[in-house]
């Protein structure tokens, strides 16, 4: 009985510690967004923070404005639209990573098409 309880405890701890818990998903632009141009592509930019034991926050992910600017630079976006901000936490045993992720439609400048 005691052994079964111990095994159950270990399995439960492993299952809970290896999970990604959903936090939030929200649009950063609303309403009258015009349809993007034909050349638009989805791009993603994210940053991670750090928590000890999933409880103590040691570092938070970057502000979404930083992620937008980073996505614009990295993907040579002339115009960005339909940005969506996701926030979730990855639990890895004794450390956890709160993740902030921006997914958006990027309209590259004509000369930058095909670049990463």
């Amino acid at each position, binding site marked *: 009985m005691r052994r079964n309880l111990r095994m159950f405890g270990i399995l439960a701890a492993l299952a809970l510690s290896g999970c990604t818990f959903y936090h939030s998903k929200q649009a950063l632009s609303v309403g009258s967004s015009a349809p993007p141009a034909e050349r638009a592509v989805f791009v993603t930019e994210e940053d991670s923070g750090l928590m000890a034991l999933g409880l103590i926050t040691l570092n938070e992910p*970057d502000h979404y404005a930083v992620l937008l600017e*980073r996505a614009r630079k990295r993907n040579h976006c002339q115009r960005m639209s339909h940005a969506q901000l996701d926030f979730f936490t990855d639990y890895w045993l004794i*450390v956890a990573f709160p993740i902030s992720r921006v997914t958006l439609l990027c309209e590259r400048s004509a000369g930058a098409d095909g670049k990463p």
Partner: protein
Amino acid sequence: MTFPFVLALASAAAAPLADARAAESLEPVTAVEPGEPPSADGRFEGRQLPAALMPSASRFWVLGVAVEEYGRGTNTRDVLYGLSGTWRVRSFGPNALVMLKPGGSSYEDTRFLAGLGLRSYLPIFGIEFSYGVSVQIEARLEDHFWLASATPFELGAVVFSKGSWQVEVFAGARHAFAGELINSFLLDPNGLENQEASDVLYRTKTLHPWGGFLRLVFGRRLD
């Protein structure tokens, strides 16, 4: 009765000072250049942040979980688990490692390892390769001794990098240069200075000082 009165007086006296400090703290510390105005149709156009507010792209942390297979001479192989942290400053990466060998019924049957090192990263054909050196100290409680070793070469590569994910693989060799028996009743009440532990230490430190390792680090990038 008098204490609240004194407190109120002190608050009133301190209020102008607090207001001045608050006004001072509201002063802009960085000149923000005006960017493109927000588009009326919900699009983001042009620069989103002034350069002064962007965090440096050349300095970041990579923290994660490490799994290491370690073998030395004819001894059995060990698998260690732990945490790895690297502070990337441009092409350099000071790093730290804390690992343990799980298993056994208590702490006397385990091994603990801590290490500090320095790596240099070089991108080749889009893949970041690294060369590093480090020192480690191990508390081999299961063998009743501690061991210090140096890693003169460690080769690594970032094999997966997407979003904040960063998976790295490292291979290298360690050379033991110091070690002594841990004579403690907590580890072995009946075996102080025991011959078997001395023999294992002699074999590990003197006969087979070199050991190879292969380490996989599942990390997250913290900008």
